[in-house]
């Protein structure tokens, strides 16, 4: 109904106040729905903006730096006089700290999940699950302090030549940080295994351990693997622990007892300085960020696909 017919209507016949009210009501309802929809679309805008900004700034970067140098160069010194732009040292640092973290978090997190899901009493679980959530919420800067000023000195007592900045203690602490995450997600996957399967196993005379290892864990594999993959994504994107404890010197090595910068640590290091907008140094953190974003996006997507698969299984 457009305004012309409306005025026409009012001149020829008086529309009932009830109808008018209902029209107003309808318009109000529509406007509200539109506002709510825009709010929901903010998620899409954000993703779009992230991708756009990363690509836009990286584009400027890749006008100066060739893709070949970026992906194959083994030196990363964008802020030096003699600048090199090989991302590999940062990727190596990121992967090394992440692998150390996973080496800690995967076994311990999985064992904790099995314990929680198959061994712990209902009461223990009720207490432990919220505590795990609390642990996930501890700010990572606090863990950075712990890695630098508690774990590293401790490790140096055993291994005196360990430098003050090293990937080992950063990775170890990051691993402990990720344990609750893996434990919680993997436990969810194990609880989702139907009770009938447990009963089937126990009815054959299996113990808890046998049931957990031979039936529940295989049945929950995809959920557990999804937990690992999402954990990798977290480790790769973790910033403060590595920026504080692993050092900020790009170093092309996979040796965890050395110090090395990760992608995130590099971004922090540059941001702490005073770089002019649109300089190559400024652009370099977006190029590095793009690589990080691609890595975590890849892991997250794989994780979600795997997790979806396990949900559909039963």
């Amino acid at each position, binding site marked *: 109904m457009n305004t012309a017919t409306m005025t026409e209507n009012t001149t020829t016949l008086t529309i009932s106040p009830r109808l008018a009210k209902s029209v107003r*009501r309808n318009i109000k309802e529509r406007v509200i729905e539109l506002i709510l929809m825009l709010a929901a679309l903010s998620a899409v805008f954000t993703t779009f903006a992230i991708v756009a900004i990363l690509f836009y700034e990286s584009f400027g970067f890749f006008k100066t730096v060739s893709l070949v140098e970026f992906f194959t160069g083994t030196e990363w010194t964008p802020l030096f006089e003699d600048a090199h732009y090989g991302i590999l040292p940062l990727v190596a640092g990121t992967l090394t700290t992440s692998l150390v973290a996973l080496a800690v978090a995967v076994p311990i997190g999985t064992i904790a999940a099995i314990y929680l899901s198959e061994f712990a009493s209902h009461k223990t679980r009720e207490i432990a699950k919220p505590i795990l959530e609390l642990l996930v*919420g*501890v700010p990572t800067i606090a863990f950075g302090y*712990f890695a630098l000023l508690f774990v590293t000195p401790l490790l140096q007592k055993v291994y005196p030549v360990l430098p003050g900045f090293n990937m080992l203690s950063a990775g170890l602490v990051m691993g402990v940080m990720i344990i609750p995450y893996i434990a919680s997600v993997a436990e969810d996957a194990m609880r989702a295994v139907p009770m009938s399967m447990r009963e089937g196993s126990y009815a054959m005379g299996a113990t808890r351990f046998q049931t957990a290892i031979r039936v529940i864990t295989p049945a929950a594999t995809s959920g557990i693997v999804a937990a690992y993959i999402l954990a990798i994504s977290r480790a790769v994107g973790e910033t403060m622990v590595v920026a504080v404890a692993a050092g900020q010197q790009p170093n092309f090595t996979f040796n965890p007892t050395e110090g090395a910068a990760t992608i995130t640590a590099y971004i922090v290091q540059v941001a702490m300085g005073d770089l002019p907008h649109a300089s190559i140094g400024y652009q370099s953190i977006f190029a590095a960020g793009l690589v990080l974003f691609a890595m975590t996006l890849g892991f997250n997507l794989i994780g979600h696909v795997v997790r979806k698969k396990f949900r559909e299984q039963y």
Partner: protein
Amino acid sequence: MTTEMKASVLKNLDAVRAMIRRHKRNDMLFAMVGLVALMLGLLTLLTLFIDLVMDGYPRFNLQFFSDFPSRRAGSAGLLSAWVGSALVMLVTFLTAVPVGVAAGLYLEEYAPKNWFSDLIEINVSNLAGVPSIIYGLLALGLFVYGFNFGQSILTAGLTLGLLILPIVIVSTREAIRGIPVAIREAAYAVGATKWQVVSDHVVKYSQGGILTGVIIGMSRAIGETAPIITIGALTFIAFLPPSPISDVAPFINFQWLDSGFTVLPIQMFNWLSRPDHAFHINAAATGAIIIVVTLLMNGTAIYLRYKIRKNIKW
């Protein structure tokens, strides 16, 4: 039944019992290992907290909260940091809560189940997995230079608002999903419009759940360091932003939004990055304070959720 048969059954039973004893030992062993694995995260956090408190205890006094940062560790304080944190949180709250709740309402109550809602959903879950430092890069490119907000409280608040948006959306949706269809039908049956049903009933009954999500999101935002560093926040701030409340009409002003600032985790990172050990004491004290604040917030949220689950029985 011959005695011979009986003897064979009994002999068999002895073997079975021996085997069960063996299996049960494995069970016990695993239960012990599992408990240790589960406790490891908790014990580490406890160690971390005790370490921070022991290192930082000389600074636990009111002076620490009322002093500006200083070149001398002993007289440096947290005043600008905690005021900055509070103001940034205010902006974060004011952006993330309305947008997040509106988005959650749209997705649960309005969105048609088609590719469009799928698109939004995929974006929300993807954003939840994007490393926080990437949000920093987004803000640096978009808010700081794109919109020319500069390295201000507004930029920081918006950045953290975007960061916790997925948390608020997801918890809103979960809270709404718990409301039975019958309640909605009852309201429609007496002639309410969709928005009346949503605002009078759906929002009201999901308040608790939404609040839980908001608290968890805010506690995450308080401890976030990486995105704030990335936007180029200064770390040495010896002034306070203009007060949001003025003594002349209209009694509020918005100048503080443009002000430079620092926040608690940044201040901690700054002190932690200095070689002088005296500043590490300040960092430890700040870390302990941040942990207490976030644990209190998360604890409140988890307790609240527990209460809601216990009390409401539809």
